[in-house]
Every structure is written in structure tokens, then in C-alpha cells.
């Protein structure tokens, strides 16, 4: 028969705080951020991280459908894919990739600042992350504007001189980068919220879950771009511009 106090328990792999309806953070008042159904801040943090990773798995499958379409059509129309890719601006795409990588660095540093209790570090790094994210979106805007000018938007305005299958490439280009950009917008908004909370000094070594979990989302959006860049931009260059 298990005694709750001090027993190593198989469930959840940690000793339970036992019969207390409200678990103490360290023999006293419960942490103000501890939700009523968790018995410790550790459990709450681990649950949050696990939850965010499961959500990211849904995002992997969400983008996965788009990549499936990409793979199928690239197999069917390799020439249209290579030709379509050549219309994309590899310098802007590459710059955007570096911008996002910088933003991932500052995001990781922001989480670290919260872990070590540096309010200034959190604020600086979160602002930088937001700046980099916004830069990405601005560059994207210019890229899209360029496509409109060059009649590369699928539909009635598409350049009739180009083979029909290239419309498929551009449809996927717009949808894949568009869905990605939508996720970036959400990410920037999320970072703004976290920034406000960090400004108010909410986070520290004992409570930084929201920063870490938002960081996971941000890094994931970066990873999607890490795949989008070569698959969309880098296909046709070895064939000559």
C-alpha cells in the first residue's frame, strides 16, 4: 500500500505531494502561478512543454499535407518545378533564412534570460526576435509584390507564355509561404504578449514556462522555413539562370 509522502511512484515518475489539495512550492504557500490541478511547478512546466510539442506535431502534419502535394507534383513535373524556381529571388530567400536563424538565436537567449532571471536580457532578446520576425514579413511582402508585377500569380493574370504546370508550382509557392507567413504573424503577436509579461517582471527561474513554450513555437516556424527555402528557391540554379 503506497504511502504518498516520499514514495517513489510509477505514475508520472515523481514523488507526489500527496494528500494536499494545494501543493506547496517549498513547504509553505503554493507558487502564485501554480494551477489548482497540478501539484508542483515542475509538473506544470513539463505538462506545458509536452503539450506544446504535441501541438507542434499537429503543425508538422498540417504543413506535411502541403509537402505531400509538393512532392507529388514535383515528381510529375520536374521541369516546371525547376523553371518555376528560377523565378524566385534566391538572395531575398537566403537573406530571410538568415534573418530567421538570427531570430531563433535571440529567442533561445530570451528563454535563457528568463531562466537566469535577467529581466533586461528577456526584454532585449524578445524585442530583437520581434524585429527579426517583422523583417522577414516585410521582405516577404516585397517578394510577393514582385510576383504580382511579373504575372506569376496563378489565375487569369498568369503569364500565358509559361507552361501551365508552372501555375501549380506558384500556387504551392504562395500557399506554402503564405501559410508559413500566417504562422509568423501569430508568432510575432505571441512574442509581443510575452514581451509585455516580461516587462512586468512576471518570469524568473521559478516560472518561465510561457517563454519556453512560445519559444518552441517560434523555433518550429523557423524549421519549416529551413525546409521551404531549398525546396522552393534552390531547384533550378544549377540549370543556369
Amino acid at each position, binding site marked *: 500500500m503506497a504511502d504518498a509522502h516520499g514514495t517513489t511512484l510509477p505514475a508520472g515518475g515523481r514523488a507526489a505531494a500527496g494528500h494536499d489539495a494545494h501543493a506547496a512550492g517549498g513547504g509553505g504557500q503554493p507558487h502564485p502561478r501554480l494551477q489548482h490541478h497540478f501539484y508542483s511547478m*515542475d509538473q506544470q*512546466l*513539463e505538462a506545458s*512543454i*509536452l503539450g506544446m*510539442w*504535441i501541438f*507542434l*506535431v499537429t503543425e*508538422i*502534419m498540417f504543413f*506535411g*499535407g502541403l*509537402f*505531400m502535394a509538393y*512532392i*507529388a507534383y514535383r*515528381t*510529375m513535373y520536374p521541369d516546371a518545378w525547376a523553371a518555376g524556381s528560377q523565378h524566385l529571388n*534566391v538572395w531575398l530567400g*537566403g537573406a530571410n*533564412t*538568415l534573418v530567421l*536563424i*538570427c531570430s*531563433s*538565436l535571440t*529567442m*533561445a*537567449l530570451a528563454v*535563457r534570460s528568463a*531562466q*537566469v532571471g535577467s529581466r533586461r536580457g528577456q526584454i532585449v532578446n524578445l524585442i530583437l526576435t520581434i524585429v527579426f520576425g517583422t523583417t522577414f514579413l516585410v521582405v516577404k511582402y516585397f517578394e510577393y509584390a514582385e510576383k504580382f508585377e511579373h504575372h506569376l500569380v496563378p489565375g487569369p493574370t498568369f503569364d500565358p507564355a509559361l507552361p501551365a504546370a508552372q501555375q501549380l508550382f506558384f500556387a504551392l509557392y504562395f500557399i506554402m509561404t503564405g501559410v508559413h507567413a500566417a504562422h509568423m504573424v501569430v508568432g510575432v503577436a505571441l512574442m509581443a504578449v510575452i514581451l509585455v509579461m516580461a516587462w512586468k517582471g512576471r518570469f524568473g*527561474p521559478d516560472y518561465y514556462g510561457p517563454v*519556453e513554450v512560445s*519559444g*518552441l513555437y517560434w*523555433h*518550429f516556424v*523557423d*524549421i519549416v522555413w*529551413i*525546409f521551404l*527555402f*531549398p*525546396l522552393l528557391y*534552390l*531547384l533550378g*540554379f*544549377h*540549370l543556369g539562370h
Partner: protein
Amino acid sequence: MSTTHHITPVRTYVAVFVALAAFTVVTAAVAYRDFGFLNTTIALGIAVGKATLVVWYFMGVRYNTPLTRVVVVSGLFWLLILFALGMSDYLTRPWMGVPGR
């Protein structure tokens, strides 16, 4: 302290950042040379490498629980199921010998 509280040093993050930037330059440079079918392989390989660095270090999976790693791997595995069984249709259609396919 539980594993989730591990604090990564700044220099590790910066090293990962430098690696990611370097890989980006390499992948763009390789695209300009013709390696045949290897172009795609190298590009995807580098992308996978970059993604692994982000997941392992920036996202902290190196210091997370085994359960978290199972979750990450499962997501990727399920993606592969979609690709593999989906492409089993597209790649074998030419075998059917129907005119126009």
C-alpha cells in the same frame, strides 16, 4: 533540479547559430553547381541537419524527457507514412501501361 531546468551556456547557442548560418551559405552555394540528382539530396540533408540542430539545442530536446523525444520522432514518422504511401501511388502509376500515364 529536474532536467527541464538545464540552462544552456550562451556560447553553445552562438556556436549553433554560426553552424546554421554556415550551412545556409553552403546549401545556396551548392545549388549553383550541377551535381545531378545529388543536388536535392545535399539540399535536403543540410536542411535536416539544420533542423536537428534547432530541435536539439535551441528547442532544448537534448535536455528533455524521453517522452518528448518520442513525440518529436513520431511526428516525423507519421509524415513519412503520408509521403511513402502517397508516393506509392504516384511512383507506380507508370507501371500500369495505360496510354498517357
